[in-house]
């Protein structure tokens, strides 16, 4: 509004031909401008806020999953309990079926000074130990039966509830009857922690174990292998097929109705809901072709079909970006069309193709819905040896854990999500670096 003061100069010029200095409502218009700008910033802030909340929520719930409470105490492999009648030489089954949890319980009870007659006490002690100790001790004994009768220092998993309590995730102000760890157990826990017998270790089990109904022994190892198989299948199938299809469409196809149809088709396939691919896989691969349910092979095939359109679209864009002058140069030297494409155009488009492929793979890695339909919602405790064996996948494992009621599984689920997100971040960063490193501007 400072301009108003300058109006005398206008008068000198003569107002006949010119309009007067006008009020064009600047104040109101700038207020509207600021409001509009604010909406824009608010929208971005809203989006970023939720991104932050989501990541915070997952990380804050999940980072503890990378640590696991373990108990390290001397365990007496008592002959009395494991093989009372000394018949292991004749009956190897004896060592397999022996009551190992009692061995661990007695060892812990001894450390805590609980009398062997105190049944309630022993039960509470037992509640501090993970059931997985049975398998662990059995493996120790069957591997080397000579340890029977000796006392060994053994590190085993604490029970999931105790793990939660030790990580401070259980509200101890709640009345004792309403929570899963008793005051007595908490006291023992603190006592063990002070003596150093109970402490948190890095949770390797999370990466190596398979499914388990006990949260403390459950891991994503099997799911990782399943996902790995599927990603390999997707990569091996979708990259060559996708590149071949794009080369044909971009370099060779005549412009006619058929190629138009393929074009529209690919764009639509990219937008088909993923669950529809699951139905396709179920009907065609499992019901019609008779592949086994839950197999990584079927999952890989379904994800391949789902990823193909993405890869084709990215590859075509990369091929399109190679300038026609390169093609003209090669053709002018007498190279055949095929040689031109494979010797010149394709290598130049490769960075773009690989970037698109990695992004397609990252999408496939996080995909859940189609895998549910082809039976990968399975309790798989053993590592699948081949892609034909029952397997599960990382996102499906997350889905299954998300449906578990136990508190400790929330931590596991979040931990698994962190693992998944780390893989996705690595893949995307890889794609970005690839693009930065090899990107060419024509």
């Amino acid at each position, binding site marked *: 509004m400072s301009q108003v003061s300058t109006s005398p100069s206008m008068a000198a010029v003569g107002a006949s031909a010119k309009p007067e200095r006008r009020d*064009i409502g600047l104040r109101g*218009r*700038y207020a*509207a*401008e600021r409001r*509009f*700008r604010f*909406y*824009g*910033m*608010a*929208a*971005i802030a809203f*989006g*970023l806020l*939720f*991104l932050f909340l989501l990541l915070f*929520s*997952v990380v804050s719930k999940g980072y503890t999953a990378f640590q696991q409470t373990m108990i390290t105490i001397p365990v007496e492999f008592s002959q009395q309990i494991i093989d009372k009648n000394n018949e292991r030489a004749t009956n190897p089954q004896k060592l397999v079926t022996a009551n190992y949890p009692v061995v661990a319980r007695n060892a812990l009870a001894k450390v805590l000074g609980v009398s062997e007659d105190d049944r309630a006490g022993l039960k509470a002690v037992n509640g501090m130990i993970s059931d997985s100790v049975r398998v662990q001790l059995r493996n120790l004994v069957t591997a080397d039966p000579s340890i029977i009768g000796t006392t060994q220092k053994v590190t085993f998993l604490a029970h999931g509830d105790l793990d939660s309590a030790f990580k401070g995730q259980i509200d101890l102000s709640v009345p004792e009857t309403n929570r899963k760890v008793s005051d007595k157990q908490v006291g023992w826990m603190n006592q063990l922690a002070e003596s150093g017998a109970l402490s948190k270790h890095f949770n390797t089990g999370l990466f190596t174990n398979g499914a388990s109904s006990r949260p403390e022994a459950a891991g994503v190892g099997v799911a990782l292998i399943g996902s790995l198989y599927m990603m390999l299948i997707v990569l091996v199938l979708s990259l060559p097929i996708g590149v*071949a*299809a*794009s080369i*044909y*469409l971009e370099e*060779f196809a005549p412009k006619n109705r058929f190629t138009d149809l*393929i074009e529209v088709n*690919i*764009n*639509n396939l990219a937008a*088909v*809901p993923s*669950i*529809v691919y699951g*139905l*396709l896989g179920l*009907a065609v691969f499992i019901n019609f072709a008779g592949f086994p349910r839950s197999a990584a092979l079927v999952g890989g095939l379904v994800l391949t*079909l789902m990823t*193909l*359109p993405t890869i084709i679209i990215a590859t075509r864009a990369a091929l399109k970006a190679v300038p026609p002058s390169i093609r003209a140069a090669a053709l002018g030297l007498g190279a*055949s069309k*095929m040689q031109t494409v494979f010797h010149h155009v394709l290598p130049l488009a490769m960075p773009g193709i690989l970037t698109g492929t990695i992004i397609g793979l*990252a*999408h496939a*890695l*996080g*995909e*859940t*819905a189609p895998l*549910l*339909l082809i039976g990968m919602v399975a309790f798989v405790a053993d590592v699948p040896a081949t892609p034909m064996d029952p397997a599960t996948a990382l*996102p499906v494992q*997350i*889905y299954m854990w*998300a449906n578990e009621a136990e508190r400790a599984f929330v931590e596991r689920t*979040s931990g698994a*999500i962190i693992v*998944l*997100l780390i893989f*996705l971040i690595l893949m*995307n960063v890889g794609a970005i670096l690839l693009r930065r490193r090899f990107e060419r501007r024509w």
Partner: protein
Amino acid sequence: MSISFLLLIIAVIGVAGYLFGSWRANALAGGKLSSLHSRPGYYGSFVAIWSILPALVVILVWIIASPIYISSTVRGGFPEEVKATSQAEQNLAYNMIGAISRGLNTLSAQEREAMFQDSATARTVLAAKGVPLAADPAPYMLTSADDLNRMTQASSTFLSILVIIAALAGAFLSYRAIAPKFRARNRVEGVMLVSLIAASSIAILTTVGIVASMATEAIHFFNMVPAWEFFFGTTWDPRFAAAGATASAGQFGLIPLLAGTLYIGFVAMLVAVPVGLFAAIYMSEYASRTVRSIAKPLLEVLAGIPTIVYGFFALITVGPFLRDISAQLNGLVTGNYASFIQAQSVLTAGIVMGIMLIPYVSSLSDDIITAVPRALRDGSLGLGATRSETIKRVIMPAALPGVVGALLMTASRAIGETMIVVLAAGVAARMQLNPFEPMTTVTVKIVNQLTGDLEFTSPQTLVAFALGITLFAITLCLNIYALYIVRKYREQYE
């Protein structure tokens, strides 16, 4: 011989063919490569292709044809009273024979003998070998299983011989064809072109596969449940997929599922559209290059997060938060601390899905908005319009068709989204208008009907395909229409 071993043999013949072909071409050229039509490698590739391709075709045909032949022969050998039963029961019997035949291969000769003596022991004997049977097998099944094994064995041997002959013959004939004037490169490139075409037709095959497979299963379903009961039914209550249950045991009304799908999608769009649009406008018209280069990729991270993670976020964080905050609100107003928003609700699923859709809306509309020619922007600014006036009165009206197309694509994504609604929307198929209550969607029901035991003969399983083809049809129409709009829009400014 197993298929993988056969493939290995073919590969070896192919590599050998390549080497011999190249050598022969070199030998024919006699040091003067220019006397050849093509480089020696092309002659080698020509031989390799003719060694591998016919053999692969033989294997493919065999894999498809031989089980059909064997199955029909075995079924032809069924006793008359079995042949008289329904197709489903015959299938059941055939599956059992398949299981027995697998079990038979694990048995020693004596065990086999004993089992054939007394078919009643078969179930226990085979179970001990890790082959569980659903019921005691009838005596004819053991012989059929034996036949099946024998035929499979014969078929495998025959295939091996045929494949090796095909590979060697191909290699020999193509090797003979090599001559200096022979246009090996053109032949090889012809084969390459055909394989390129084959690769691009996979896109068509996928669509055909989707439509055909879902249509077949859906037609089975509509044979059991009338189509109008499905499309216009207002009750969803499929009951259990009990064997032998009649179709009338459940009600398969699509309407409540569709209502839930649309309602949740609507709430999601209510969140995503304003936020995404304003974000896109800010990015393309206001943001400085630095802000844009930081905020844009960060927002796109939202699109890269798997939907299962959003589902978990809704289940663990957003749902309980809404429930607790509603309890607090209710408490403040009425003094009664009861929550009126359920943890699983239309609102929870809608909000979280909306957040997921923000980057789709924003990046699609960002593309559309930047496609508006700069001249229009300059024209408006040159007249003294502020930026917001330019956006509201010139750019948005010009971009409107494209933006509508982008929103339709986003809507189709909302309708097809699965994992968020599976975890956050609930499973109760209800028709109601309260966004604080759970509703369910088409996708949730597809998952529900197909996890667990499947029976491709029960409507409870098959209804998933009817739901699937409905979902496919809706999203396809939305997408084709949206693509059409966007394409026209782009042509306008090119």
